[in-house]
């Protein structure tokens, strides 16, 4: 019986796709990140004229007054406090070989979160903060951390905290590979996936402020600024990797590996279009 339903929904999904698939008459253009970022900000500021630009980083709290009030109260004693404190200790603790995380980063790793991700021209790929942290560990003889929670969340929480208030400052060098990475990230963002046929945009561009079941959807503008987050739904901390992978499975798409090329490029795109908005991490979410 179940398989019959699944079969039927597969057929429906096919039909729905056929119905929605529009033969796009859009020519392949040269990527123009500056124009994209401008259009992105314009879309959200026009959709929500009462929300200040820097407030978009507060996600659902910028969309709902009652939630905003409760969140402001909670911020006096935020749930990410324990993780943040642990992250500060972890960051300072030397590796077995005597070196520390500070040795891997510019400015000792303090106040630099807003520069990630960046395009590494030597490698030809996007490097995220989470990836950089694990590479630092491996370069110093330590085992890599899980990308989704616990220590990785604590470390990125601390690094985000040292950058609080600093505006996102993502750079796209004049390199066709960097432009391609940006374009890949953009394409991923708008592409429908999973059996539920949602794209990131379905929720975060077409329906911010609306409800999906009991949750209020966040706008895509500034959506990474509060990461990592203590999410009540998770009962704990989660990183950007955690959010991307769980989002995929929620729409019934098999998640890619954390820090897969697609995810790195997605993070690159989403961070760049939020340039100028302040880092607010670590954050708390419902």
């Amino acid at each position, binding site marked *: 019986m179940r*398989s*019959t339903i699944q079969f039927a929904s597969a057929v429906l*999904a096919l039909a729905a*796709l056929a119905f929605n698939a529009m033969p796009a008459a859009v020519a392949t253009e040269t990527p123009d990140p500056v124009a994209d970022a401008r259009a992105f900000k314009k879309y959200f500021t026009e959709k929500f004229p009462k929300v200040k630009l820097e407030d978009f980083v507060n996600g659902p709290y910028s969309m709902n007054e009652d939630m905003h009030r409760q969140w402001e109260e909670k911020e006096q004693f935020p749930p990410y406090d324990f993780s943040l404190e642990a992250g500060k200790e972890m960051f300072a603790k030397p590796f077995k070989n005597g070196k520390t995380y500070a040795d891997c980063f510019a400015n000792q790793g303090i106040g630099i979160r807003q520069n990630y991700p960046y395009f590494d021209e030597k490698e030809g790929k996007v490097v995220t903060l989470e990836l950089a942290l694990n590479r630092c560990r491996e370069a110093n003889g330590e085992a890599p951390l899980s990308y989704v929670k616990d220590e990785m969340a604590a470390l990125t929480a601390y690094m985000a905290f040292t950058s609080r208030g600093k505006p996102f400052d993502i750079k796209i060098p004049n390199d066709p590979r960097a432009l391609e990475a940006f374009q890949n990230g953009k394409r991923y963002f708008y592409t429908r996936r999973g059996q539920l046929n949602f794209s990131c945009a379905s929720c975060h561009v077409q329906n911010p402020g609306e409800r999906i079941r009991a949750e209020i959807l966040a706008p895509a503008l500034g959506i990474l600024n509060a990461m990592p987050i203590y999410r009540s739904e998770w009962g704990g901390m989660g990183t950007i990797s955690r959010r991307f992978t769980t989002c995929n499975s929620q729409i019934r*798409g*098999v998640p890619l590996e954390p820090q897969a090329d697609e995810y790195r490029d997605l993070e690159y795109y989403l961070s760049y279009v939020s340039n100028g908005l302040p880092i607010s991490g670590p954050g708390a979410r419902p």
Partner: protein
Amino acid sequence: MIRKPGMLKSLGVVALIAGTTAAFAASSEADFKAAYAAAEAANQEAGKLRNQWTTTTAALAAAKKAAAAGDFDQAVASSNAAEALAKASIFQATSEKEAWKAIEIR
């Protein structure tokens, strides 16, 4: 029982359906293996497109579980469902290659 014209035809249809059902009831392990292989191949193709669905994975697992329990009818049904889902996910990935541009903020 009142005989009416067309009744024989209906009986014939019933027999056809019954016959078809009977054929299903006789699904063998070979039938399952073939159906499963087709489903897996489709899912792997979806994997190359980086667009597999969790429900496909679940249907494949259900097929394997049913086969292990000797219920090859169910195993074949689940495999067929998995193949349909996998093919739908391939269709999605292919059509989205262009379709995504329609919702891009410009």
